[in-house]
């Protein structure tokens, strides 16, 4: 399936882009992360400390082991620092 994958803050900077379309058969977000890390060093580096990464599925905060289901958009980012 095709997914829009978004990166924010230092994840965006390390990976070098803010958004890309990814073709994947991953079952969960964690599986998708494993696929991305296997691709290139910059992904491997960006995702090296998953305790510092949060994710959203179709713009909703979810745990990393959430199934992708029929989602169209996955986003990765550090803990939020608004306010």
């Amino acid at each position, binding site marked *: 399936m095709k997914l829009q994958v978004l990166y924010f*803050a230092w994840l965006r900077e390390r990976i070098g882009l803010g958004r890309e379309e990814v073709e994947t058969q991953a079952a969960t977000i964690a599986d998708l992360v494993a696929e991305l890390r296997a691709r290139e060093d910059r992904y491997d580096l960006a995702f090296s400390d998953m305790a510092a990464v949060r994710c959203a599925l179709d713009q*909703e905060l979810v745990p990393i082991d959430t199934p992708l289901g029929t989602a169209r958009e996955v986003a990765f980012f*550090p*803990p*939020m*620092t*608004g306010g």
Partner: protein
Amino acid sequence: MADLRILVTADDFDLGAEAARLEAGADTGAVVTFTGRVRDVDGGLRHMEIEHYPGMTEVALTRIAEEAAARWSLAAVTIVHRHGRLAPGARIMMVGTASRHREAAFEAASFLMDYLKSRAPFWKKEVTAEGAEWVAAKDSDEDALDRWT
């Protein structure tokens, strides 16, 4: 149902106008506002950059405002958050609550801030002469959520 106003903008906002809007109902006796501002503690800050997640930001802020309106008797809730480049001293964001009584207005405003800090998709970066650094999330901000659960 409370009147919710959610605004995500690059522009500065007018606190007096936002407060006047919150005051509008006949039954509103209490308005609380919180304004957050770019501090320059060491005098070395050139500017702050705030990144956000367009689309999700509005959804997350609306959900937080709705949750506050469900927990307290509120006539109105306002959340304004800026993004982009902000100079030292600039306003970053505000929340405002309107209620009959002061306790609800104070508690709801404090609740909005706690959730907004850790659950709304904004990221702050500080740019100084030495370079740029993403602001680290504080454990204390995550811990602050505990008192509402």
